[in-house]
């Protein structure tokens, strides 16, 4: 492990410890933690969307992934707010549903993303051609040996 990685890991560990120290409620602390990591993941993914070629399959896949991340983050925000603002006790149950909708949406988009990964596997997989090349090389070696 190099110095940079160690510094990053230590910073993250201190950040996590600080959240748990400042927020006494465990569920809210976990909520803040997931929101922080979610925002970071969204920033990195958005940066990669900007860097990839327009129309490329990897960019499309990254956009789907970004939408899934945003949905999950919205779920985390809704879930944490429901705890902080006490919606679960004070307001009708229907206020909880948008959170579950975000979660359901994330999984639906994940299915599309997974299907796209499957397509990419077919498109970028060259094992069939590699086997053919191996056969050609073997027959050439045989011919050369004779």
């Amino acid at each position, binding site marked *: 492990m190099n110095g940079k990685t160690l510094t990053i890991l230590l910073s993250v560990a201190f950040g996590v410890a600080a959240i748990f120290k400042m927020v006494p409620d465990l569920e809210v602390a976990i909520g803040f933690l997931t929101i922080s990591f979610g925002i970071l993941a969204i920033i990195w993914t958005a940066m990669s969307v900007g860097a990839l070629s327009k129309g490329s399959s*990897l960019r499309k896949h990254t956009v789907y992934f970004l939408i899934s991340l945003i949905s999950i983050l919205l779920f985390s925000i809704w879930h944490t707010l429901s705890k902080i603002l006490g919606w679960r006790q004070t307001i009708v149950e229907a206020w909880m549903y948008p959170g579950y909708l975000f979660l359901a949406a994330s999984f639906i988009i994940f299915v599309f993303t997974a299907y796209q990964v499957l397509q990419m596997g077919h498109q970028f997989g060259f094992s069939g051609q590699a086997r053919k*090349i191996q056969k050609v090389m073997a027959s050439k070696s045989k011919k050369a040996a004779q």
Partner: protein
Amino acid sequence: MGISAEFNKKLKGLKEYVALATVDASKYQETNLQIIHHLIEERNIPGVYVTLNKPFKSMIAVFKKENIDADMVIFIDAVTKTVGGELQKTDKCLYIGSPENLSDVSIAMEQAVMALPSKERFVFFDSLSTLLMFNDVTTVAKFIHFLAGKMRVWGVEGVIVSLRKEKDKALIDELTQFCDAILDF
């Protein structure tokens, strides 16, 4: 000077290298085919042929005519227009759909090189000049820098072809620093 002689002179038997081949426009196809013939038929090594210049269909016909075994090559065709510019795969070639789509070209090249069943393998990139027609100079310079680095990681014999043009001279000079040799044909 013949292709083999130029290779031997400039690369001195290197098994892994990145070479920039500058080719005269009047004998462009002939020289490319001679390089490929040298790699496949004389050296018997498999490779990846990335074409931004001529469609796969034309390439395969020329290979056949010149008695070059196309089964030793994985083709990546970024010039043939596909429906909606989407990726299309056949058992002989991967069509990228657009020469501007450098992200997919990079992924396809890496996957193809890694699939090759030999320690000795080549990557033939045809060509830098065509890349410049579809992308700006900075993007091309960055891409070639990236590609040269990748070729070293993959441990391949990498040949990047460019037409010998006066207006591309500055870029070629800049790219020289990323390459092990400049092959003049």
